[in-house]
């Protein structure tokens, strides 16, 4: 799995976007991602947790324990200020990339043509 070096990118960016709305635990993130992407992103836990822990080691998310039904304790994740900044940067890059792809796919007159 590639390390999240210079920015969230890809799945990391999506996880940060989820956490920007509210703190979540792992299973909740998988379900939210699946619902919001209309079943396109169906992460397995084995992909999610290494990615979450990578984001935590990079200081973009932090974790804490909270109660769960049946006297269990759940690990929740929260985005940090550094994570929010990284998310905004990556969103800008992604929007620029998406606009560029859309421009090529939808065609259009070349300048000077």
């Amino acid at each position, binding site marked *: 799995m590639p390390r999240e070096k210079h920015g969230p990118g890809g799945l990391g960016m999506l996880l940060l976007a989820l956490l920007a709305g509210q703190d979540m635990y792992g299973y909740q993130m998988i379900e939210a991602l699946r619902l919001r992407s209309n079943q396109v992103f169906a992460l397995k836990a084995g992909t999610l947790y290494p990615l979450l822990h990578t984001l935590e080691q990079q200081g973009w998310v932090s974790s*804490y324990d909270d109660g769960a039904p049946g006297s269990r304790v759940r690990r929740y994740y929260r985005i940090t200020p550094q994570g929010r900044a990284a998310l905004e940067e990556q969103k800008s890059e992604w929007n620029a990339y998406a606009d560029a792809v859309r421009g090529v796919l939808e065609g259009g007159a070349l300048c000077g043509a």
Partner: protein
Amino acid sequence: MERDVIRTYLHSVGREIRWGRARTYLLRELSDHIADQEGDFLDQGLSPEEAAARAVEEMGDPVAVGRELDRLHRPQTRWEIVLFLVGIVFVGLVLHGFTNSHFYNGPEQYLGISLGLLGMGAVWLCDYPRLLRKGRRWVPLCFLLLVLAFAAACLTAPLSRSALPGAPGRWLLYLFLFVPLLFAAWLSARPGRGLPSLLLCHPVMLLGALVPALFPALEVCAILYASMLLVLTAAVWQGFFSLKRRTGLLAIWVPPCLLTGAFCLRHAALFSQRFQTFLHPDRDGAGYLYATLRSLRDSLSLFQGTDTGYRVTALYHDISLMLANLASRMGSVVFWAALLCILLFFFLCARRILALQSASGRLLAWAALWPLFFQGILYWLGNLGCSPLSNVLPLPFVSYAPAGQIPSFLLAGVLLSVFRMDTLAREGPFPTRLTPRSHAASIPLPGGRLHIEYRAN
């Protein structure tokens, strides 16, 4: 039966995670996830056996998951710092051959370096979070024993700085370089909150820093006090005393400034005489060494030494003037290279310290780095004739004598251990949510999204 499926899966994952401490909380998190997934499948009408099997299947390949988690949750070595240290040691050994000092003893130097590197390796591989947890309560006793042993050595056999190098007092003096580490270990237990607790640190620092004055070793006092002040500053910055940073910093730095000013005024005559000697060595016979070193410094070109042999003869006999000795032969490039190495080592370590996750680890790392840095800088300034503290400690990792080298290597070992164990270091149990936090829910609607924020009771 369904529990067996889950147990088997978790066992397979756990087998790939080598560190026991990480394995415990990682498997707990995966177990919680399986329970949530299983609950959903049960709600969909699956039988318990099917729900457990489907939940485990959704987790992915256990070996791949375990290996990936092991990669993230294991000690990580900073090889650039290790290689830098080894390089410095090697260069130091080579350069000692050029000093021609009468006191240099090659076998003793190799012994000191060997013991130092072994000690560094042993400390490097330690599980410092566990040692810190178990050893914190022994900090006051360790410090008391050190003080008593040192006082006994100094008072029962009074020594001056020119006395035998192997004297017990000198060995114990070097052990005082670990006092900032003891201080950081004590602070990491968070001895209290608020201004009174912070102000209590001042007499503790003074006690730790002033004991070497029995030797006397003012440069050690200065190094210890400055290191502990900076460690305490880091503690306040990280919120250890639950104070506003401005209040905490004022409470840390104002009392020492006032104390120092009062002390200087009380002994104004003595300080005035010492500083006059330092500032104008040519007017005072006691300033001969300052005068020699500064005339040497002024006569050097970048890559060429000086032929004023009679003036630098004294340098050959004093191993604590190794840089000046080498510069007299090779030029001022020796001073520039030494400064570059000191600053580069500090930069490499400081950059890593600032990125550490563990607050206690950061304190310990600063407590190990500052004494090494101040030792190096004071040695450099002393060799240039620019330090009012006329005696210097050995140049870390380079200078001569096992007694002075081994503590430097052990402090470097502490740094490497903190860096290595950071991904596994935890400040006790995971934090829990104690106060109600606002929640947000974002519900997709045909025309957009409905965003709701609420606070749970």
